[in-house]
């Protein structure tokens, strides 16, 4: 893949050096047409032009065949389009009707495929034709000088300063200062108007509906969960706080509250918890059952790919990975804060309950997410 065309370009160059980047140098044009026996054709146009890449008659004949093959392919594909169109009738009662979704897919594939091949064949044939049969002229049309001359630049700055003096902007400080003063409030207005984006969140980002004594229900079935339901090692279930479905709340929890309160309950086998877990974190578990927020601390996807073997919790969006046996510590990925843990216990009847709110703010991390309240 070496290209020796440019090696002697600099030496042979006699023309102007200021050629536009991307266009061939004049020297190159000369070397490319090597051994051109036939006389060069001149291009009749407003700019000087000369022919490059002389194609011999043999080359042109070969290219003609190639282009013809492309056109034939395009022709056959065009015929194929009609075949594909008429092969599957629209009649829904027939055997091979396009009303059947499977047949419709094949029909679409065949129609689109043949049409694409036909158009591509015509384009490819025309490209071969243009590149290998038509004569090539190199036309040079120089650009005008772009930068302004020093005189023009100087006269503009003189004119600008003269006008500033004449208007009084430099000579009359009272005028200038009152004008600037009048602009200050307008400049501040956009900043002050930011207040309209709403009241400050307060503690809403850090408080959820979980509180001491709230029972848990299985997401989807609303069945209350007992600690004994998760007795088997490796058990897992997604849960919400128990919440009334009544006239006031016909759909139970609002979507917002679902996102904030949803937890994964995971039963970790005895002895699998890592020593890195603090005593407090261990107290927040019950009989090997640990509860984490299901919402990833990176950008809030549901991180729920729990692997019972490695105890990793994986978020499917950006592959943040948390260690369920180590307080959901981040072991990989863009999240940089553990999943919030929910302190849990059981009540007198054996139902799992929360023993307070999450250990930190749920969801995507913000500036003071880790600070307590």
């Amino acid at each position, binding site marked *: 893949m070496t290209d020796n065309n440019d090696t002697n370009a600099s030496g042979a160059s006699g023309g102007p050096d200021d050629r536009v980047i991307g266009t061939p140098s004049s020297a190159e044009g000369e070397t490319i047409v090597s051994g051109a026996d036939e006389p060069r054709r001149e291009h009749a146009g407003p700019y000087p032009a000369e022919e490059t890449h002389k194609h011999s008659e043999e080359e042109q004949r070969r290219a003609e065949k190639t282009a013809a093959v492309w056109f034939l392919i395009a022709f056959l594909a065009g015929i194929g389009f009609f075949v594909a169109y008429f092969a599957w009738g629209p009649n829904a009662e027939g055997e091979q009707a396009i009303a059947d979704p499977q047949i419709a897919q094949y029909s679409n594939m065949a129609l689109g495929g043949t049409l694409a091949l036909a158009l591509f064949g015509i384009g490819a044939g025309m490209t071969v034709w243009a590149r290998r049969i038509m004569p090539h002229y190199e036309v040079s049309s120089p650009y005008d000088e772009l930068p302004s001359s020093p005189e023009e630049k100087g006269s503009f700055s003189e004119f600008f300063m003269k006008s500033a003096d004449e208007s009084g902007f430099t000579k009359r400080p009272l005028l200038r200062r009152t004008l600037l003063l009048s602009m200050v409030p307008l400049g501040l207005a956009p900043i002050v108007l930011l207040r309209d984006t709403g009241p400050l969140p307060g503690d809403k980002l850090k408080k959820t509906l979980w509180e001491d004594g709230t029972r848990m229900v299985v997401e989807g079935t609303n069945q209350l969960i007992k600690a004994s339901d998760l007795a088997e090692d490796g058990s897992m279930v997604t849960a919400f706080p128990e919440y009334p479905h009544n006239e006031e709340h016909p759909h139970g929890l609002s979507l917002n509250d679902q996102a904030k309160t949803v937890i994964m309950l995971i039963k970790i086998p005895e002895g699998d918890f890592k020593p890195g877990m603090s005593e407090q974190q261990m107290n927040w578990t019950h009989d090997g059952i640990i509860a984490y927020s299901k919402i990833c601390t990176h950008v809030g996807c549901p991180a729920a*790919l729990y692997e019972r*073997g490695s105890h990793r919790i994986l978020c499917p969006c950006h592959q943040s990975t948390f260690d369920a046996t180590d307080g959901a510590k981040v072991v990989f990925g863009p999240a940089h804060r553990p999943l919030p843990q929910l302190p849990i216990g059981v009540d007198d009847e054996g139902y799992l309950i929360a023993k307070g709110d999450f250990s930190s703010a749920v969801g995507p991390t913000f500036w003071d997410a880790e600070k307590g309240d």
Partner: protein
Amino acid sequence: MKWITARRRHPLAGYVVVLLALAVFGVGYAALAPNAERAEAQVLAAQSSGPEEGAVDVSEGRDIWNRSCASCHGLNGGGSGNAPDITTAGGAAIDFQVSTGRMPSSNPDAQMPRKYPAFSRSEIDNLIAFYEQEIGKGPAVPVDVPGDAPLREDFESEEAYEKANEEYKAEYDAYIAGADDVEAGMKLYLANCAHCHSWSGAGGGLTGGHWAPELTDATPRQIYEAMVTGPGQMPVFNDLAINPDDKQELIAYVKDLQAEPDAGGPFALNRVGQVAEGLIGWTVGLTLIIACAIWITAKQRAHD
């Protein structure tokens, strides 16, 4: 050879050589590499005696255990360095692993894909009977959930096969129709399964080279067994947390997913949906268009 000599200095020649070499090595490796799973399955199928209808045969189950399971899981199922203790796995786990062809595994270090089972239905039943009698206890096979369709090769006569097939279909339809609320099943699927197995049931990647398999071929019984036993990295969803009726609804929903026509045609992209298909279409399509544009406008060389 003149043809090659003329073109070996072509700008694309290097790429062509690399592509050809990769193709030769790839295809050659695939052809030469011992396909151990297939070989083992064939050997086992050849060794096994003909299926017996009716009662289970514990001694045949013991034979299968000693021959195909004990080398890794131990004679009493206690496991070894490269295989887990399965004394508490239960008949449901045995049925799941063997009927999906994942066990016996030829490579204990890797997750096994679904493949054609090495044993016939009656052999699996015998193995489970032996396991439950002598090895261990755990979740039992959910016998009222329909499993695999009967295979012709397991039956002596065509009529017996037809009859078994009809019975199976009736059982299957009754089970799916028995689900009260498929929408509730969808909610359960989206809350508990979709993260790993994808909302289309096409499966997806996990960490450490593991993956969640596709659900496109799973029978209702296999789905049920996977939920109650938690094979591989999958957590357990036992009958207390998600009761059998809810599981039935969930399975009916998975069957709906399986029946969904594949919108991607030959280029399904794991049924990830139109947005992702569009993205791929744009990327690949634009690349091709740019390649065409480069080809059309490329400056010709003197020796072309």
